[in-house]
């Protein structure tokens, strides 16, 4: 460490080295890796390949000639230059080609590409690629180093794998177990329309599946580096999201009870929820005994600490409701900024125990929050084809081989000439012929 390093504040030192605005020009973690992404109508496959593309892999998106149906996933059908917003967001750094995998000529071209590919991602019903003669069984014969990742709600084996049902985000969320423990509890004999198991608003099931696929593929590339062997990876996005559950199965084993939905409360922590304040909602937490004492000190209600001294008292649902009302009296009399300031002032000056404040923001508020722009989390990108766009960057900041967004998306088949020429030496005549035959 140089003398300058020693005296330099950590935050400044590290910002100099991992600020995402300095990512371009640095090496890429997955440089040299070739990926064929045949995802079809699945954001989980697309997110997995975004991961690989943002870390530097050459990702070739293979769509049917009419385009991936996922291009039509968009709020109320809103299209930007013919592409829906869900797809537009996950086209990052990928080359976009078309290939009709149902036709022998398309399968033949795919086989040739697969011989020299490192990774294949697909999301068809299990066995579909196999039936076309381009599944892992066939492709790994010529390319034993191939890593082949299939994503499907019910996976590639097990009693339900052959059920034939489709994979859509909402079923992954429903099967994961997370939906059953999210949402408002039912109060009366009949549930009101909102007192039901409730999914996450975003495509959380699909994104969890994509992230696990990214993880498994990178573990497999590391293993291949060491042992020279590829493999078949089977990911269920439902299990992927289900692995992120706090607890569930062991709770049934131990107590034979399902876990209830408790709205914005938490069955394992209190206080840990949103409280109404003068101008919105404040999140406040202070659970462990020492933090609860800090909490009661800040809101000047040490009597609550007397009444609910242990975590056992605080994890009783009836008690939670009483404490909630009492705490809300304090928050209702203040604005969010006043609450935040009072809590942080305690943390700064007294600092015995810690109370954690936060603001309930709409995505509109979030988009106006300076911090995300300063940190390069939200970025404006001027895409060569789609123009100026606002997207979220990968959250990882890395000093050595950071991820980055080079372009946001490409239209259907936009890279046919470039990729098929580079990989298969197709010239204008062949390209025209394949197009006329409906192969590309």
């Amino acid at each position: 460490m140089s003398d300058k390093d020693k005296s330099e504040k950590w935050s400044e030192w590290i910002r100099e080295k991992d600020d995402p605005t300095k990512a371009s020009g640095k090496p890429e973690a997955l440089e040299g890796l070739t990926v064929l992404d045949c995802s079809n109508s699945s954001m989980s496959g697309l997110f997995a390949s975004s991961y690989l593309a943002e870390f530097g892999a050459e990702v070739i998106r293979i769509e049917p000639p009419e385009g991936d149906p996922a291009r039509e996933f968009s709020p109320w059908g809103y299209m930007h230059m013919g592409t829906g917003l869900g797809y537009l967001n996950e086209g990052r750094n990928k080359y976009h080609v078309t290939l009709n995998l149902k036709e022998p000529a398309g399968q033949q071209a795919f086989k040739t590409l697969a011989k020299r590919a490192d990774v294949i991602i697909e999301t068809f019903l299990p066995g579909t690629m196999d039936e076309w003669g381009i599944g892992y069984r066939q492709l790994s014969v010529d390319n034993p180093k191939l890593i082949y990742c299939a994503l499907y709600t019910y996976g590639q084996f097990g009693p339900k794998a052959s059920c034939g049902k489709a994979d859509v985000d909402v079923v992954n969320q429903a099967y994961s177990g997370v939906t059953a423990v999210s949402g408002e509890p039912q109060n009366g004999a009949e549930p009101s329309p909102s007192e039901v198991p409730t999914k996450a608003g975003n495509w959380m099931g699909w994104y969890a599946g994509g992230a696990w696929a990214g993880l498994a593929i990178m573990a497999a590339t590391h293993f291949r580096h060491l042992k020279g062997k590829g493999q078949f990876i089977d990911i269920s996005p439902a299990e992927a999201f289900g692995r992120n559950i706090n607890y569930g199965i062991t709770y049934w084993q131990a107590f034979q009870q399902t876990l209830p939905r408790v709205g914005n409360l938490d069955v394992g922590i209190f206080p840990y929820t949103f409280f109404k304040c003068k101008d919105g909602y404040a999140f406040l937490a202070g659970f462990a005994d020492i933090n609860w004492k800090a909490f009661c000190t800040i809101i000047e209600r040490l009597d609550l600490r007397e009444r609910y001294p242990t975590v056992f008292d605080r994890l009783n649902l009836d008690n939670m409701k009483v404490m909630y009302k009492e705490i809300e009296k304090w928050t209702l009399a203040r604005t969010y900024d006043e609450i935040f300031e009072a809590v942080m002032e305690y943390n700064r000056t007294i600092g015995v125990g810690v109370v954690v404040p936060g603001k309930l923001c709409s995505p509109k508020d979030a988009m106006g929050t300076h911090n995300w722009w300063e940190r390069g989390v939200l970025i404006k990108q001027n895409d060569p084809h789609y123009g100026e766009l606002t997207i979220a960057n990968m959250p990882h900041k890395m000093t050595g081989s950071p991820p980055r967004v080079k372009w946001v998306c490409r239209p259907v088949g936009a890279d046919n000439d470039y990729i098929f020429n580079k990989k298969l030496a197709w010239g204008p005549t062949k390209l025209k012929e394949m197009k006329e035959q409906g192969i590309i």
Partner: protein
Amino acid sequence: MAKKEYFEWTESLFDPEKTFEKPEALEGLKIVELCTLVLGPSLPAYLSELGATVFKVEIPGMGDTMRSLTPFAKFFKGAALGWLKEARNKYHLGLDVHPEDGKQVFMDLVARSDVVVENLRSGTMDRWGIGYRQLKKINPKLIYIALNGFGQWGPYMERPSYDAIAQAESGMAWISGFPDKLPMKSGIWVADLYGGLNGAVSVLAALNHRDKTGEGQFIEISQAENMVRSLDWTWLYQHFTGNGRERYGNRDVAICPSDIFQCQDEMVAIAAATDEQFKGLCQAMGKPELAEDGRFATHPARLKEENATVLLESIRTWARENNYAQIDELAGKHHFAAQKVSTNKDHFEDEHLRKRNFTYTIEDLVYGEITQEGVVPKMSETPARIKWTGRPVGFHNEYILKRVLGYSSEKIKALKDDKVIGKWVDTPLGRKPPEDWDGKSGLPLA
């Protein structure tokens, strides 16, 4: 019957019975974890399932605060359920890194490891003299990942955070729940557990980079920023329309139909994401003509508010007239999506999930038979696995100090006498071994 043969082949290829005959993808990778609560500890747990060796460093006595996280304060054999699941396969070292001797033990461990994971506030480790700047000197190939609420620099770097704050400030809570109700926090610590997952991906990206170049690096992840990235079309929608994204209950406004419906006996998610799937659903409903109707014939048409409302209402009516078994069968036959909202009981009893080692039972040397959410990736050559579930604070002290670091018995005793290393306390719950533990089972080098 090509399909039948395919499934016979996959059954044999991925057979969980063969797991322990096969190698592990991350065998030999050593990770030192200095983390508390969930965001940090989940990351090494995921990597441990793929074969990494994880040394979890905890403060002697109390250990990780996470050891208290359990629903309604109900413990399983003295262990918190929120902790147990993310402590699997780890070696537990009760070590205080504040005294100089403790820092030295930590640095000795890091010198022999590949990855450090910490989740303290920005600059804390640096101030303690065991941050990235110091550790990379003793281990230049080190991959160091720091996870926390708002990152290592920037306007919010001093702010403490929890999972729910990441959900709240990213906008995720806002877009979840019903329009006429409050924004909804997820029923799980999604920003923690999904944050740790995304952190794990970047560790492996860095490992791939190190495989090629021999170089380590520093990585930071912010929990909230991680959720910002997961909000799919939100930012583009706001960019183009100037409207804010709101919440729409269980309905997906970007895929139609996609919603959760009440059928005769269950709440069931039903969706069709393509024209083909939609045709199948219409046939199942006995209304094939809907697929030809101009209002529903294409996906962009179905997504229009006025059309979506009509369509979802007709599915709602149909769902109410059928039970889940009927809908499930029709979905398989006609290839649309349908799945009942599954509970922990459903997972426990699900033969499919058991077969796939998602519902994963082990016989643990300390906790006995235990069933948990198991492993996600099924890998033909390097299957993921659980070897043991969590262990009490400091359970592996002797093993790590002797076997891994080669310390003498005298040195270990001195560290113990100076309270630099230590084991569990009896209270609060969640730190000590279960009542029926025999005092030696599960202890390596006991």
